[in-house]
């Protein structure tokens, strides 16, 4: 511990004795070489920093030694590069050897050597800044940009490749502090984009050799960018304005239609409500009143006739061969009917609409239109002739035709098929090939001869049988229109069937009315369908003695011509009511069917291919089973009639 301190004291004494002497003079302080630079790799300069001079005039000398050589040379030029510098010219500069340089400060008291420095000229190159910096504003598709160009320092020999320089430039807006740097490589031009319109830019450039130092920044070049309108911005402004405008319009529209929109989006939920049901009455506690309000007159049908009608009575008629065949085919028919139903498209979707009168009305109206014309034409004539024909072949067709108005359209309507598939109805002519025909046949037979179709129908109410007679005529007339198109296939069968049916129906008719008809049994009257008026009423005209009146007949007993289709009974017979002044025509269901058939035929007559008339009758009847129109009253809902033609 003591030793070091003693040594320190000794040193201090040594150093400070000169001072202690009282003189301010001392040998010069040690100079230091600050830097050596070569601007072009052909010459170089070294600068030094003089130390404290010690109070006396001090001279500085620079000595250098070349690599591996002991010869010491003194700086050839002290003045070119300024104070405290040494300039080595081209002859003294060699890139092949290192220089060992020392600066010596000398004054009267002594000299001090600086630390030596080794110099490799190649590595101390710091070029002069680039020259002739020019900046111009140029345009690229409406967008301005700056083009900066410069030249290398004139001393640097870049042309021969002696020095290779890379450049760097920096840009800033006037007033800002941050420079934007761009490295330009070895090229001497550069483009600057993304300018601010109307701004003033400061540009500077500098260079550097491969191995060396960056030069100083060149003098600043100023450039002002002219104002230009931001096209992009203007486009965006337009778009925004347009969008806002559309938005306003939409809002206004929404406001106007807010109510309807509300309905659309949030439809009002129907609360449970029973028509005629007054909640207040409930509160009052008078149940009688409440329930009385609920009672709908006429529903359920309380009349005995209705009840009877509701009963499905089938008149079973035993017909050998044909019936059995029909039975067999009936099943097929059933299927066919079903199929046909499914295949055809019906606006009404078939079954359900049967129940609604209005729908029936609509449908029938359509058929009626068609039927009227045909009806008027043929009715009178048909009855006579067709009796025979009917027996032969037309009957089934006719019925079919009438039944299916859409035969005109060439399609098999589903309507008939709806009613067809009653299991009992197997009375389809055996020869049927087409489903339509089968259906027709089936239906036809069913409609016409509800009882007679199969044995199962044995119990068919008499009215049906009755109808057969009637409808036969109707059918004739009607069939007249269509028959041509009908297939003659079934003729024989049909004939047989028809006859048998007729017979049966006749029989049945006799019987049926007993069951179905109201207490008042009346003789069957043959009624011809005169026409269908606007009110969807089938105008029936009674025919005397089962024979068609002929041409002149249609107008007989006009007063009795008005018949209303009351409904279709369970036998698939259309119950007609003939409105006659004071006279009530009690029609067998057969008649109803006839009318139905007629209407159908009327409608279908126009068309060649109508086929399903009788089924229509049946169909309607089947559909409207619940609506048994009492034959007694004779009122038949026209709607039910019209159901037939609609399909």
């Amino acid at each position: 511990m003591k030793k070091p301190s003693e040594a320190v004291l000794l040193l201090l004494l040594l150093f400070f004795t000169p001072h202690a002497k009282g003189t301010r003079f001392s040998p010069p302080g040690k100079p230091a070489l600050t830097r050596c630079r070569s601007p072009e790799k052909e010459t170089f300069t070294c600068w030094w920093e003089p130390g404290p001079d010690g109070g006396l005039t001090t001279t500085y000398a620079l000595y250098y030694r070349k690599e591996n050589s002991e010869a010491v040379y003194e700086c050839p030029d002290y003045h070119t590069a300024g104070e405290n510098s040494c300039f080595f010219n081209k002859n003294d500069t060699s890139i092949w050897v290192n220089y060992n340089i020392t600066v010596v400060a000398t004054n009267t008291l002594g000299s001090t050597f600086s630390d030596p420095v080794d110099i490799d000229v190649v590595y101390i190159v710091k070029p002069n800044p680039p020259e002739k910096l020019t900046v111009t504003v140029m345009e690229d598709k409406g967008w301005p940009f700056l083009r900066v160009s410069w030249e290398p320092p004139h001393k640097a020999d870049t042309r021969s490749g002696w020095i290779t320089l890379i450049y760097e430039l920096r840009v800033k807006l006037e007033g800002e502090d941050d420079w934007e740097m761009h490295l330009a490589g070895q090229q001497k031009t550069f483009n600057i984009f993304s300018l601010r319109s109307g701004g003033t830019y400061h540009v500077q450039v500098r260079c550097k050799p491969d191995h060396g130092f960056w030069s100083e920044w060149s003098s600043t070049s100023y450039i002002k960018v002219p104002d230009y309108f931001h096209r992009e911005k203007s486009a965006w402004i337009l778009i925004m304005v347009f969008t806002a405008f559309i938005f306003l319009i939409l809002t206004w529209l929404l406001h106007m239609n807010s109510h309807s929109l509300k309905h659309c989006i949030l439809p009002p939920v129907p609360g449970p409500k029973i028509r005629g049901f007054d909640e207040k009455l409930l509160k009052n506690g008078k149940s009688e009143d409440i329930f009385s309000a609920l009672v709908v007159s006429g529903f359920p049908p309380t009349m005995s006739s209705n009840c009877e009608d509701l009963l499905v009575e089938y008149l079973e008629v035993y017909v050998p061969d044909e019936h059995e065949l029909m039975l067999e085919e009936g099943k097929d028919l059933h299927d066919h009917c079903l199929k046909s139903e499914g295949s055809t498209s019906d606006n009404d979707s078939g079954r359900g609409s049967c129940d609604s009168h209005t729908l029936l009305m609509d449908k029938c109206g359509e058929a009626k239109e068609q039927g009227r014309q045909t009806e008027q034409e043929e009715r009178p004539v048909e009855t006579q002739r067709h009796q025979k024909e009917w027996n032969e072949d037309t009957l089934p067709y006719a019925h079919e035709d009438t039944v299916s108005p859409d035969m005109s359209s060439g399609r098999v309507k589903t309507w008939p098929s709806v009613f067809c598939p009653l299991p009992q109805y197997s009375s389809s002519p055996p020869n049927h090939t087409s489903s339509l025909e089968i259906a027709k046949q089936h239906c036809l037979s069913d409609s016409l001869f509800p009882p007679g179709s199969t044995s199962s129908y044995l119990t068919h109410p008499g009215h049906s049988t009755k109808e057969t007679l009637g409808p036969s005529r109707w059918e004739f007339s009607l069939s007249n229109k269509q028959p041509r198109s009908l297939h003659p296939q079934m003729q024989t069968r049909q004939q047989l069937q028809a006859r048998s049916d007729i017979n049966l129906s006749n029989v049945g008719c006799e019987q049926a009315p007993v069951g179905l008809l109201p207490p008042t049994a009346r003789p069957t009257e043959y009624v011809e369908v005169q026409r269908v008026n606007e009110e969807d009423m089938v105008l029936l005209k009674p025919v005397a003695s089962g024979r068609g009146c002929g041409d002149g007949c249609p107008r007989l007993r006009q007063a009795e011509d008005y018949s209303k289709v009351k409904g279709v009974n369970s036998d698939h017979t259309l119950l007609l009511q003939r409105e006659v002044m004071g006279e009530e025509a009690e029609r067998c269901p057969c008649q109803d069917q006839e009318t139905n058939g007629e209407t159908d035929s009327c409608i279908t007559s126009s068309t060649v291919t109508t086929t399903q008339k009788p089924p229509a009758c049946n169909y309607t009847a089947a559909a409207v089973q619940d609506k048994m129109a009492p034959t007694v009253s004779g009122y038949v809902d026209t709607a039910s009639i019209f159901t037939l033609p609609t399909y």
Partner: protein
Amino acid sequence: MNSMTGTVAWRAVWAALLWPCLLTAAMPLDCTEEQGSLYRCPSISQEKLLDRVIQHAELIYRVSEESCAMFEEMFVPFPLRLQRNQAGYSCITKALPIPSSKSEIQHISDKWLLHSVLMLVQSWIEPLVYLQTTLDRYENAPDMLLNKTKWVSDKLISLEQGVVVLIRKMLDEGMLTTTYNEHGLFQYDALPDMLESVMRDYTLISCFKKDAHKMEVFLKLLKCRQSDNYNCA
């Protein structure tokens, strides 16, 4: 703590006393290229030197090629343009013991390569100076041509220095101050005919161009041998 401070103090004292010694003793042995630092290796490494010499030679050759093309275009009539060595005008360095064929070059040693280069360089210093003077006499010689030739002559001198240093480094030979062909190779004949004069100058330039290329090739071969001795052509 006291012991620590004590040792530190002793070291500081000795350092202060002995600082002059530090100057001479503390020489970095390995050379690192530190830019900005004033303390460099005492000597340039051999590889670096060779690279610089090669670069030098490349530049000289390139510039000489440019000058030759320029001269030919300006002064030499088309039919007389030299495509190959012609008997009329031979290069001044023809007499030098320089390997000329590829096989010779492959068998020559490094030492001889270097010496060949040195010979070439030294033999061309004077003719180039002469060329400069003659070109000045031309009426419409472009400045660029003159600059180029001057540049070449300057660089050639520098190259000579470099090769000398390289020889010294690589071959550990002493400085060769004497040139092989100080005299005798070149005569300053003043030819009366302009065309003759032009042709002579043209020959001079083209010969120099070839020799510069030779120098470059030798040096590059030398470098190749330094790195990979078996794959050099």
